[in-house]
């Protein structure tokens, strides 16, 4: 068949597909309700025409036209759409906790990499007043001591601190903490070195600060402040680390896959964890800004709430969506 005849013979199908695609590429509420059911049939016919046009060496212009039409059809037919709120619910209840449980060994590794240096530095700084200067500059130490000094009431909302400051800090925690979580994850692609350093560094700093302030006797200001959001924040750091270590595992021990293939598979699972960690950090930022900072609440109540929050995080991560893991 000559090209011209071929075009005349099939042009109507191509035009029909073009119109259907024009319609389907609009957002659903702006469609005029014309017949869209024919998409798969029209698309397959254009694919067949494209294959024929290529095989018969028809002109590039014609092949390109059919190619672009097939490409548009492919994009529309194979795009994935589902109810976003349902996906969010499934993610929170099933996908995130079950992905974490599947990678429990890496989670415990990340947890150890974070808490062991924290405990070690905490102990050292508690027993030796000057040890903190080995990991922090004197300026930082002075700033941190000033922040938690029971002698100033900056922490408490009661007088010096207004609720607008709470919101300012909320924004800061979002920007800073979730950013740290994301970087901890991403730097795992450098064979895990970035994630490793991030976990160790955070563990060392947090442990040193906690040990030093306890030794100074700032127990009444420091611990009630951090107890509440620590359940979410510290767990989220460990989970970000887990996600980063998953990237490293794909590159270091790909198993019976190429490194590229292993990386794609692991990254798809790891991104679920980092999104979950971001959600936990969002909750942590909320608690830290609006609850932890409230100086009017008695420390006993703060510790009670903190215990409850820790319990709920542990229960959520270990039990939520159990039995639906395969879904």
């Amino acid at each position, binding site marked *: 068949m000559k090209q011209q005849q071929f*075009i005349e013979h099939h042009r109507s199908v191509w035009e029909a597909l073009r119109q259907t695609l024009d319609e389907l590429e609009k957002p659903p509420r702006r469609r005029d309700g014309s017949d869209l059911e024919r998409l798969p049939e029209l698309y397959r016919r254009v694919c067949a025409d494209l294959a024929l046009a290529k095989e018969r060496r028809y002109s590039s212009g014609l092949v390109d036209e059919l190619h672009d039409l097939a490409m548009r059809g492919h994009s529309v037919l194979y795009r994935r759409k589902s109810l976003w709120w349902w996906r969010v619910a499934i993610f929170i209840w099933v996908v995130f906790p079950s992905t974490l449980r599947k990678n429990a060994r890496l989670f415990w590794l990340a947890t150890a990499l974070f808490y062991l240096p924290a405990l070690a530095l905490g102990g050292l700084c508690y027993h030796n007043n000057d040890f903190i200067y080995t990991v922090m500059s004197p300026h930082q130490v002075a700033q941190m001591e000033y922040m938690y000094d029971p002698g100033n009431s900056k922490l408490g909302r009661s007088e010096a601190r207004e609720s607008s400051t709470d919101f300012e800090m909320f924004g800061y925690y979002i920007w800073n903490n979730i950013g740290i979580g994301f970087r901890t994850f*991403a730097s795992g692609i450098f064979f895990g070195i970035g994630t490793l350093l991030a976990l160790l560094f955070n563990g060392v700093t947090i442990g040193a600060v906690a040990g030093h302030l306890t030794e100074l006797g700032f127990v009444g200001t420091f611990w009630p402040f951090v107890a509440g959001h620590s359940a979410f924040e510290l767990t989220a750091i460990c989970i970000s680390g887990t996600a980063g270590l998953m*990237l490293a595992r794909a590159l270091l021990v790909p198993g019976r896959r190429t490194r590229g293939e292993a990386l*794609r598979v692991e990254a798809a699972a790891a991104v679920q964890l980092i999104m979950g960690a971001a959600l936990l950090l969002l909750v942590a930022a909320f608690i830290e800004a609006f609850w932890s900072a409230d100086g009017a609440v008695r420390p006993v109540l703060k510790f009670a709430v903190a215990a409850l929050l820790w319990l709920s995080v542990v229960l959520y991560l270990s039990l939520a969506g159990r039995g639906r893991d395969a879904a």
Partner: protein
Amino acid sequence: MLNAPLDTVYTFETPEGVDLGLRIAGPVPRALAWAIDAAIRYAVVFALSLAIFSLAKLGFGIFLVVLFLLEWLYPVFFEVTRGATPGKKALGLVVLHDNGTPVGWTASLIRNLLRVVDFFPVLYATGLASVLINRQFKRLGDLAAGTLVVYADQGRTSVAPQAAEALPLPVAVSVDEQRALLDFAERSSALAPARVAELAQILTGENGAQAVHMVHGYACWLARGR
């Protein structure tokens, strides 16, 4: 294929059994697209900082939340809802999965969270190295997410060859040569007349307009027969 052309077209097979080709975008258009996006982001940050200056501390909280969203999720939002960020749109680029389907949340999140390691240590040095090593111009984020940045070839239409009297070919030609003749007829309107004449002269040995007329005749013969 013998003598495969040196090209950046990446082909994948659809479930319908046809090969679709994607033209992969190289580092230069992608860098320009990034620069446009960066300009947009800075403009938003600047405008916002003026607008909320009066709100003091509450405003600063909002400012930081917006800064976070712009820094991490701006590309994700546009890639998933529009196929590409405004910068990429301006350069005619689009982000797709390796199998040619539009990019989804998971892949877009992976490639944009890993942007920070591609940026490492300065100005996308790691990403550039990865793009130059990789056959499909993938930065680390693209490798992990399984995504491609390609030119959005949409809606090219064939041009009818210039009407001419069909002229039988004096010699037998191969299918690829037939295709070259058809392409010449289709594209001659986009070329300089002198160049068209020059090419036709090489083929026919005739001069100027006469040569062009002959080649168009051959093309018509191939396209619609007698």
